[in-house]
């Protein structure tokens, strides 16, 4: 069974053979053995006897479905985001006309739980990428939350002095 995996900008065409005990990549066959180590999605992987310890977590459809579109894979202290699809799907999607993504509202979320120490922008304000939007205190450190893009502040959902949960929507920009 052939799959196309995208890691960063590299594309890997991988043929999973022999019930997952061998793979083919770039015209070469490799022995593979992947084994669960206890729970927590930790696996011991032997690739041609090279020993790796990896963590795998599924990535689901960004449109909100439960379909798996890839995996986060931790290899040697680095997390790789791997997008994956079967070769057929891949070929089909190649011929489809890519849609230009519509310009969308950008949501700024709290990167961690914490206290809003100060708020530097107001609704309607024009902002530029990298500009400090607010300061969030967590673990006794002040962290600056910066603008991810140029735009206009459309909504502010917090006030200074408020304690916010992680991932809470703080501001909306478009």
């Amino acid at each position, binding site marked *: 069974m052939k799959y196309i995996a995208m890691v960063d900008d590299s594309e890997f065409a991988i043929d999973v053979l022999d019930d997952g005990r061998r793979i083919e990549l770039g015209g070469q066959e490799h022995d593979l053995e992947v084994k669960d180590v206890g729970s927590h999605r930790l696996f011991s992987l032997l690739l041609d006897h090279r020993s790796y310890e990896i963590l795998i*977590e599924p990535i689901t459809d960004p449109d909100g479905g439960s379909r798996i579109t890839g995996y986060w894979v931790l290899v040697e202290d680095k997390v*790789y985001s791997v997008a*994956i699809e079967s070769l057929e799907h891949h070929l089909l999607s190649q011929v489809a006309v890519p849609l230009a993504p519509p310009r969308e509202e950008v949501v700024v979320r709290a990167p961690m739980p914490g206290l809003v120490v100060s708020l530097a922008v107001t609704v309607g304000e024009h902002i530029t990428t990298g500009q400090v939007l607010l300061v969030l205190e967590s673990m006794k450190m002040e962290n600056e939350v910066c603008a991810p893009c140029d735009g206009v502040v459309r909504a502010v959902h917090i006030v200074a002095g408020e304690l916010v949960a992680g991932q809470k929507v703080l501001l909306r920009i478009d």
Partner: protein
Amino acid sequence: MFHKVLIANRGEVAVRLLRASRELGLRTVTVYSEVDRTALHVRYADEAYAIGTAAASDSYLRMDRILDVARKAQVGAIHPGYGFLAENPLFAQACLDAGFIFVGPRPKTLATLGNKIAARRLIASTGIPVVAGSERLTHDGESLFEPQGEDPVATARRIGFPVLVKAAAGGGGKGMRVVRSEEELPAALLFASRAAKASFGDGTVYLERLIAGVRHIEFQILADEQGHVIHLGERECSIQRRFQKLIEESPSTALDEELRARMGQAAVDVARAAGYLGAGTVEFLLDKTNQFYFLEVNPRLQVEHAVTEMVTGVDIVKEQLRVASGRRLRYEQEDIKPHGWAMECRILAEDPDDDFMPSTGKVSRLYEPSGPGVRVDSGIYEGFEVSPFYDSLISKLATWGEARPEALLRMLRALAEYRIVGIKTTIPFFQRILSSVRFMMGNLHTGFLEEAEPPVVDNDPAAPAVAAIAAAWMFHRQAKAPLLSQGSGDGSTQSNWKRSSRWRGAP
């Protein structure tokens, strides 16, 4: 000696204190905030008492409640650890007034040393060189900066730019700012003062000359009630990020026997001048010409005490407890014979790839290194929830070697073994720093980290392919066994170990 001790702290230092207390046969009492009910310091103690909500101001900083617990549990002594109330003279005095031994210096010493400006004045009077600086610049910590007394701009000009703005009540580098020109001064004063007010309840700041290329060298001291003072040699803590120490070692590559003896004597003199009791640290800056300058005294146990313990064999916490009970120091200066080399990395719950952003969440998987020459002082366990309420220091990893290279290579080995899944930590950062030629050469100074990006460690070049293969294997398996893929539901609940990678991708 007293038989029961209250540990007025949490996290890894509380565990460290519990271990020492146990080895002395003392009964132990801990206090905890709501969110720390199942923290290690609660589980390890003989007795544990709730003292409030998660905010430190409502729990670990509540002197009244801590003293209530001390009375209820009938302890003989209170050990404050570091941070929280450790350097608070009011707390030390309140302990004594309530009839408890305070494991630390006398309240008067804390009061003098706690004010960095007063401490500088005291030490300057002994003839030991002090870094050039200003007197106090008061500020209410809220509105615009309105200096009293000396004009900050004139003072900064006198000292010479760049200058540092420091909190008078500070310590540990919190709230410090570098100012390179007159224009930057007002904003920096405001920021530092606000941070000082927030961290220490006192917005007073002062200016100090920033010397480039210096090393941070500190001496561990021990003093007893009978007036004996010794030092346990130096630690080098030049690897700092925004004035926060990250890597410490003992001895320092910069000192020879003669300089060590001179600086050690200066540290002992400082301790004597301050009427010191217990364990403490005298911090110096050492410039390129081997001139040293007094910086400040940390009147408490220090985070990096483990490296001194590893090279001297002295258990500083046990000695602290003994001396606090009125016993004489068990060592004369000539008994202290350092042996080998030790190094420590502070494992912080911060993401080094995302500007050291704090990382909270559940430690879903933990494997700690051990084996020869490795020491872990940790406050976490598998299943522990790292909360946003306290310091990000979750564990300290220290290694010992016959010489610096062995300690360093052992540290790299131990860092590679250390697995903390569920939160981001500084482990990969240390792997990069310790693999750099610059660090291996030992040519350290406090601007080390700013000088150049540490070289990226060559990851196995096959790693992306391995990630792709693992993903293909898993996709194949789950496609073949759709009944087993309930795991897909987890995809929507973001797990922590990859969350910060996602942050970088999209806001």
